[in-house]
């Protein structure tokens, strides 16, 4: 397993719509494992393939869903939201591609998602709490959307300028 570099916004690859994964090959499974390792190292609770520069519809998450339940590393290929609750939830989100920036985003409080698992089997499950926010945040990445796209233009531009500065500093280091 390898920790892959995470792309930092602004990057054209973070704005593209990712391609469907037609078949869960050994290469795709290896990518999912690398992404989980990269996510744990960050640390984060979710990561989408475009964030490591691979424009495929794959996200990984680590959900601790219930009290007393073990952490569950999950890999979701071709995830699709099939239902959203009317109830909304506002939560302070951050993104591994936008380090150290956090802002409130309002999304449905619960969602049902359908995806293909590592064995290519179709799965469907409901998510609430942080996992509802996280799965929607990660699926957005597959459509070239970032959480800052929900913010007012001024705030979004301010964050983008900070990221441009951060990238210049990292390039010099």
């Amino acid at each position, binding site marked *: 397993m390898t920790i892959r570099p995470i792309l930092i916004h602004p990057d054209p690859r973070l704005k593209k719509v990712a391609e469907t994964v037609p078949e869960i090959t050994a290469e795709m499974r290896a990518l999912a494992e690398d992404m989980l390792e990269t996510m*744990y190292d*960050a*640390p*984060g*609770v*979710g990561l989408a393939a475009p964030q490591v520069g691979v424009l495929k519809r794959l996200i990984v998450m*680590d959900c*601790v869903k219930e*009290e*007393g*339940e*073990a*952490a569950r590393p999950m890999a979701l290929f071709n995830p699709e939201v099939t239902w959203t609750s009317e*109830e909304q*939830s*506002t*939560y*302070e*989100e*951050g*993104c*591994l591609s*936008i*380090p*150290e920036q*956090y802002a409130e985003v309002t999304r449905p*409080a*619960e969602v049902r998602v359908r995806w293909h698992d590592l064995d290519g089997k179709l799965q469907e499950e409901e998510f*609430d*709490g*942080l*996992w*509802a*926010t*996280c799965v929607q*945040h*990660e699926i957005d990445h597959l459509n070239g959307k970032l959480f800052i796209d929900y913010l007012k233009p001024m705030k979004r531009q301010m964050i983008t300028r900070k990221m441009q500065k951060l990238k210049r500093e990292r390039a010099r280091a």
Partner: protein
Amino acid sequence: MSLRPILTPPDARLRQVAAPVMAFDAALRALADEMTAIMYAAPGRGLAAPQIGELRRLFVMDTGWKDTGHRAPRVIVNPEIVSAGDATQVMDEGCLSLPGVIVPVQRPSEVTLRWQDLDGARHAETFTGFAATCVQHERDHLDGILCTDYLPEDARAAALAQLRPRP
């Protein structure tokens, strides 16, 4: 999605009194999920909301997972210590907001805690040993108190000199 960083001194939010939780909604559940994830990633055995800048009265804890490998997170909302035994114990305490610092703290060895869960249901339980220290340490965070506050002045200065930046 990233996790919020754990605050360290001299961040003023570690020194404020947190507000009671009134709304037992989806956002509270999400906050508890994030705090649990941050605690395990740290890795730690307890984390209070003010440590990530949320001035609300809740903490998460899992006293046993580092020893057993089995995760059993608990979410404690609006905790109150309703009684404490006369006997005390001294335990070496660490804190995710004080990386590198370990200090001996004397506290009651048995406390009865009353709290609410994520649905607002009320619970009460008596904690002893390490768990008693842990719930008192975490509850202190909700009033802006750090474990180093219990040390005499010179010992506190020496302990805080060990503070290193969070990796």
